[in-house]
């Protein structure tokens, strides 16, 4: 595939522009999408750049269709992706569910906006529950929550690889701030960093006779028998749990002796990082823990952080009313550390907000 970025270089771009460059660098062949703020520019940049590199684009009639066309394209062996937000993410849950059922390497970039419903076009972290456990399945998804523009670039590339390697739908969870803001980063060709891109391959229509040359491919999203479905779902759960340790990523700072652990994800973790530094400078022993993968969740790593720190309290800071908080509680069931929340749905959180909250609960 044609080189897109060439020599590694510094860039100063919006998050949406970075998504496009990363998808190009990752070898994505086609994007299907439907406009919604704040992800529109992913489509805009893609339509501008894709033809130069022999890639394709189709704007579908809605998000349901965009999701399903990705499901179709990946079965034909095309590295395909979509991007959406808010109500579009709601509509895409059915195709996302199909990707779970059929183990399709679907990649979706979610730029969270405010909700419920059309909410705001700006920013939020209210699509955590939807992106991790949306649909009528078991949440067998891989969800990366990015915090910086560098991470958007890195994880979009990684997202395509894990999707095609492990065959579970993969999500890069950003937000309106990350989508629209500009900040410096370095862009590069994956192979220049020793990253080997997994080549796409057709999932159906393979050569050879079924039963003679090869086994049949059962890519199925509907079953006649209850027991059949039961077996499939259990197999998927087993596969997911087996690979989870290879997927899980997290970031941890100053947890060894922390009296309070501050947990956040995505762009809010930037403020949490600053808050921990500032609190430490004031003599308050704060620790920082950030799940990078929200699914699978670094639950053992968080349990370990709680144990080694001996922290008396945990604070969950998020731009939602308890979506990360609920996720954490279910993941670390049995831990007795009291958990407090700083819930600011639909608005940004800065270090000052977190520091004030910490001081009010310690």
């Amino acid at each position, binding site marked *: 595939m044609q080189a897109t970025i060439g020599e590694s270089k510094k860039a*100063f771009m919006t998050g949406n522009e970075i998504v496009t460059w990363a998808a190009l660098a990752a070898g994505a062949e086609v994007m299907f999408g439907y406009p919604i*703020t*704040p992800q529109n520019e992913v489509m805009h940049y893609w339509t501008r750049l894709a033809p130069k590199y022999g890639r394709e684009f189709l704007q579908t009639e809605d998000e349901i269709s965009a999701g399903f066309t990705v499901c179709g394209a990946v079965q034909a062996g095309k590295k395909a992706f979509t991007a959406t937000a808010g109500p579009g993410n709601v509509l895409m849950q059915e195709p996302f569910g199909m990707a779970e059922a059929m183990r399709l390497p679907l990649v979706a970039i979610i730029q969270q906006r405010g909700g419920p419903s059309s909410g*705001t*076009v*700006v920013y939020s972290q209210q699509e955590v529950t939807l992106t991790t456990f949306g649909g009528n399945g078991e949440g067998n998804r891989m969800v990366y929550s990015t915090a910086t523009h560098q991470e958007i670039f890195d994880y979009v590339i990684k997202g395509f690889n894990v999707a095609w390697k492990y065959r579970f739908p993969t999500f890069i969870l950003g937000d*309106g*701030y*990350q989508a*629209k*803001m*500009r*900040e*410096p980063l370095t862009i590069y060709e994956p192979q220049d960093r020793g990253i080997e891109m997994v080549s796409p391959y057709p999932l159906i229509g393979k050569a050879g006779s079924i039963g003679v040359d090869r086994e049949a491919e059962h890519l199925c999203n509907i079953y006649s028998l209850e027991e059949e479905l039961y077996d499939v779902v259990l197999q998927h759960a087993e596969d997911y749990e087996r690979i989870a340790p290879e997927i899980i990523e997290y970031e941890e700072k100053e947890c060894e002796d922390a009296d309070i652990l501050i947990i956040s994800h995505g*762009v*809010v973790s*930037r*403020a949490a*990082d*600053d808050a921990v530094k500032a609190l430490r400078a004031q003599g308050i022993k704060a620790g920082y823990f950030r799940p990078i993968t929200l699914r699978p969740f670094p639950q053992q790593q968080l349990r370990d952080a709680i144990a080694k720190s001996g922290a008396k309290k945990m604070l969950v800071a998020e731009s939602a009313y308890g979506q990360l908080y609920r996720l954490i509680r279910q993941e670390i069931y049995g831990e007795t550390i009291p958990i407090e929340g700083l819930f600011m749905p639909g608005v*940004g*959180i*800065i*270090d*000052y*907000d977190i520091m004030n909250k910490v001081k009010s609960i310690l």
Partner: protein
Amino acid sequence: MSLIKIALAGEGGQGVQSIAEIMAEAAYNQNMQTIYIPNFGLEQRGGVSIAFLQFSDRRIGAPKFNKADVVIALSERAIGRTAGYSDENTIFMYDNSYPIPEAEFPEKAKKVIGIPAIEIANNKLHPRVFNIIIMGAAIGLTKIVSFEAAKEALIHKLAYKFEKDPNLKELNFKALQMGKEMAEASMQEGVEVRA
């Protein structure tokens, strides 16, 4: 250089986001850590447009902030919308070409500065360089980038326009210079500049 936070607000069409982008580019070109985030609600359908800018020599945390070091508000509505970003450490600059009701101003500010950018643009330069006067003033107040770096970023952004009409370049540079001088003068004297 420690962190400098600027909130820049005006009516849709006043060119607030354009100059925010040029300043951010100029700082990035000088290898500074820079974050620029436009307020991107439904402003283009008629409303106050805000640009949030942060500059530092170190990694920058959250993309938004509660209080700014410098607020620049270019209309009566913009003053009302941004007053909350001002506290006792904030320099609050506004356009005093038209009278503004006292109630609109922030309760707290280190200093409130009025400059007649609209009036100067209309009477001495050209209405279209109004936002460049403001950019000059922002640079004069904050020193985030050198005057030369600002000029370079301006050339980069407006190259296609300058090519078509070479006079535009001088006009823009003059606007930048006048804005910078007005801001510097007002900081020294602590008095409002009148056109």
